[in-house]
């Protein structure tokens, strides 16, 4: 308990020191259904955080911004709005899986998701699942996974939401969505758009960000139909990004990038007594065009189609034992100027089990085996347990073996691609403690990840770079998340949220910290509410990160603060107006070397709910 006290004190200090980010406690209406229910049922012994709408809205420019301020994940962003790749628990971007309604959407070519191409406003729920998720979500769920979920319900609903935002650097954004639901049908349609000149000042450098314009458009359609003892659901989304890539302190940007993603998912769910069966069919399309010179029509292109068919059956016995078996077939057909045309077939068999013993203890065992593709795919497993020691304190533990299969670029890139690559593998364990003392909630997790056969591109003779299974890493660290809510009289209330992480991620050969993994990161927010008015102050502390593999050069740590106010118009509860100031103290900072981030900037917004 002594340790607990330290943690609590620490949590408070963080709130007051850097007044920090917001992680919401689980807040879900019981009747809302997830298209990816296994996220809830088979992750009991894992750390799962959900970001609610009000939190997302504070940092809605991109998924990068949302997660930067609300999780321990570090983002390498090549200038604001440009290519953005995460480091989750010290792992690399290819070891962080992005899961859309249960489907892994990391690029076939790069094996990662550019978090600036994802609109955080297109989903009902954004969840962060820390730790290994390879069994459930396949390749790349090593450090953790980000879940973008569209939920549905069959309760009568008729809502339409609209939002308009205008900000510095000629940033214009709008979103609109409508949800219509009845006893048997659910329909949600929405669009969302942002464009920016993105010509911010490099603070103190007498230079501007040039050639960094970006535009993102997203449209979604989510439908569900109730069937006798089941449901048919349809999720669909389309995203288009058109960006010029900005230069650095030393270079002028001249290249550009356009990408398109279209995702469709059809699921049929049927219940047969204690059994529940789900058939899924998905199609994913991705296309990129890289323009070495954005003024010229020349480009390099890649296109990939992924078709997934899956059948799963679940049995739930005596409200205690949940067992799920799934067969999933995936066919990828990709074609690119630098990789030629290639296909990959995978057949995966997955068994998931969760067993509740008594009221307060449950454990899970999960296995995955893949067939057909050319690698020697390991048998993946994970085991987890959660023990609710008391109303105020729970313990969880999990361990897993995960992997990342080589991407099409790794295998087929011209020149250098290596078809003899094997998957990267990693083992990990995590132990977590959850505290809930009145309005104070805290979560303390320690983790250890050991990875081997990591794919690394290295120069070979003839100056060709080639990927090989070479490096080994070891990551460990601690993550602390706290939230606190206090009501001050009838009209006032205060909300605090903070998180802190320490991450050591080491290249075992060099015995050096991996580049772009900060040892320390903290973020948090404090929000004050009074009647129709609310204001928040949000902060981010990012520690020093190394930029060279021998740790000879580094980026400075930085503190960034944002401020926001909003007001619900008293005569019409459906209109909210507000404004935000980002980087209040006009701090110069970089999260990728030589790529300055925005100066102080302003945003005003107007939201309607009809």
């Amino acid at each position, binding site marked *: 308990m002594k340790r607990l006290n330290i943690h609590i004190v620490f949590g408070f200090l963080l709130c007051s020191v850097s007044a920090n980010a917001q992680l919401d406690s689980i807040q879900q209406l019981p009747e809302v259904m997830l298209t990816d229910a296994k996220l809830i049922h088979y992750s009991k012994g894992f750390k799962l955080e959900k970001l609610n709408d009000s939190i997302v809205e504070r940092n809605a420019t991109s998924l990068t911004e949302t997660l930067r301020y609300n999780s321990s994940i570090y983002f390498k962003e090549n200038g604001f709005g440009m290519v953005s790749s995460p480091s989750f628990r010290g792992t690399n971007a290819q070891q962080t899986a992005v899961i859309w309604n249960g489907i892994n959407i990391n690029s076939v070519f790069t094996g990662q998701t550019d978090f600036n191409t994802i609109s955080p406003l297109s989903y009902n729920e954004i969840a962060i699942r820390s730790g290994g998720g390879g069994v459930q979500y396949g390749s790349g769920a090593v450090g953790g996974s980000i879940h973008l979920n569209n939920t549905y319900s069959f309760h009568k609903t008729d809502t339409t939401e609209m939002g308009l935002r205008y900000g510095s650097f000629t940033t214009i954004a709008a979103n609109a969505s409508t949800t219509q639901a009845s006893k048997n049908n659910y329909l949600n349609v929405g669009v969302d758009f942002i464009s920016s000149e993105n010509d911010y000042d490099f603070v103190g450098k007498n230079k501007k960000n040039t050639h960094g314009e970006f535009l993102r458009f997203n449209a979604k359609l989510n439908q569900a139909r109730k069937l006798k003892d089941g449901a048919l659901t349809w999720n669909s989304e389309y995203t288009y990004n058109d960006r010029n890539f900005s230069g650095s302190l*030393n270079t*002028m940007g001249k290249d550009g990038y356009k990408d398109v993603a279209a995702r469709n998912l059809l699921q049929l769910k049927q219940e047969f007594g204690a059994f529940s069966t789900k058939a899924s069919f998905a199609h994913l399309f991705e296309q990129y065009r890289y323009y070495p010179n954005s003024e010229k029509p020349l480009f390099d292109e890649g296109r990939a189609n992924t078709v997934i068919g899956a059948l799963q059956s679940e049995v739930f016995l005596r409200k205690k034992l949940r067992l799920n078996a799934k067969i999933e077939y995936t066919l990828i057909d990709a074609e690119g100027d630098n990789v030629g045309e290639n296909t990959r077939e995978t057949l995966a068999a997955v068994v998931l089990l969760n067993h509740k013993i008594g009221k307060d203890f449950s454990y899970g065992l999960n296995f995955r085996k893949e067939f057909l593709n050319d690698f020697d795919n390991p048998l993946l497993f994970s085991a987890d347990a959660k023990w609710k020691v008391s109303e105020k304190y729970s313990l969880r533990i999990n361990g897993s073996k995960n992997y990342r299969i080589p991407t099409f670029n790794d295998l087929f890139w011209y020149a250098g691609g290596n078809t003899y690559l094997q998957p990267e593998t990693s083992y990990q364990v995590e132990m977590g403690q959850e505290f809930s003392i009145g309005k104070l909630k805290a979560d303390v997790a320690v983790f250890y990840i050991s990875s081997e056969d990591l794919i690394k591109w290295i120069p070979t003779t003839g100056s060709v770079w080639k990927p090989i299974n070479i490096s080994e890493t070891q990551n460990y660290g601690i993550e602390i998340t706290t939230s606190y809510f206090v009501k001050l009289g009838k009209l006032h209330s205060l909300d605090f949220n903070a998180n802190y992480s320490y991450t050591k991620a080491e290249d075992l050969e060099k015995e050096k910290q991996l*580049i772009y993994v900060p040892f320390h990161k903290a973020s948090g927010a404090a929000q004050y509410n009074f009647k129709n008015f609310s204001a928040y102050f949000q902060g981010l502390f990012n520690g020093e990160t190394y930029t060279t593999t021998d740790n000879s050069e580094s980026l400075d740590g930085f503190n960034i603060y944002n401020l926001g106010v909003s007001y619900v118009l008293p005569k019409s509860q459906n209109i909210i107006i507000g404004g935000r100031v980002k980087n209040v103290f006009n701090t110069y900072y970089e999260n990728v070397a030589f*790529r300055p981030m925005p100066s102080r900037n302003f945003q005003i917004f107007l939201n309607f709910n009809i």
Partner: protein
Amino acid sequence: MKKLLLLSLSTLFFISCSSDDDGQPEYVPAAFENGILITNEGPFSGGSGSVTYVSNDYTTVAQNIYKTVNGKSLGNIVQSMGFQGDNAYIVVNNSNKIMIANRYTFESVDSITSGVNNPRYFVESDGNKGYVTNWGDPNDNTDDFVAVLDLRNNTVSTTIPVAFGPEKMVPYNNKVYVAHQGAYGQNNLISVISGSGLEGTITVGDVPNSMVVSGNSLFVLCGGNPNYTGNETAGSLVKIDLSTGQISDTYNFGTTEHPTNLTMDGTNLFYALDGKVFKLNSTSVTLPGSDIIDGSFYALRAKDGLLYATDAKDFASKGSLKIFDLSTNVEIQDFQTGIIPGGIYFND
């Protein structure tokens, strides 16, 4: 764990915005003469290259000397350097500029920012003229050129369109020989430039990557097309008689052998191949010669019985300069350089 928390706490409290760059105290000698200069390309993705100085007596090493002296960075991808009189012309590839500094003090003298596009190498000819090879847009094989500089006012006086992928140059007898290595592709030409005009081209082996002049002969080392092109060709050493401009001899390597980095000391030629350095007698060439040193090097230069070789390591950390005694082939010195040391120059 307690200690860890305390540690992180104190860090949180006390870390403020600290200063930039290496954090190493840098020694600033009065002059950078009598030594070796190394150009470092610098980190990928927007960083700045640098120049490292090592004195001939090995007692002084100074990193990042241009920035130390002038307080500003050179720019992105410091490709190479050339000299004219007291001036060093530093070619900054991706920033599209040539930074000019006094080669002994490294004080900034001037810069050339217009008239070059993707510049690669600089040479001086007849005192007042400089030549700079330019790729233009590397995806466009028709816009490559050699910029002719007037070194009296450091401006581009004219440009000479040439075949794609012009790279290293050698001046000889008021002519400049330009090797067309082929940029991101492959080419097989030597352009001969005289004054401000293209006099002609000489077809050599595929991918001519380095040249030396020995007496009245130009040795051109051609790497051959690499395997990944699907049209792999053998490397070759081509000897051109400079009095006639004709090829006098061609020596072929094995089909899968792709040599690089030709350099010369006296009558000995040195080059790199498959993780080894080979030695040849320029007066009676028999390939491959004798292998004398093991190691994969990014740049090689031989001079006065010593071989200078840079190691770029993983291209994402500080590299090194190794010096070998060519009488024993033993490494005698090893110095840290900047990131991706790509050029070795003698500043005597």
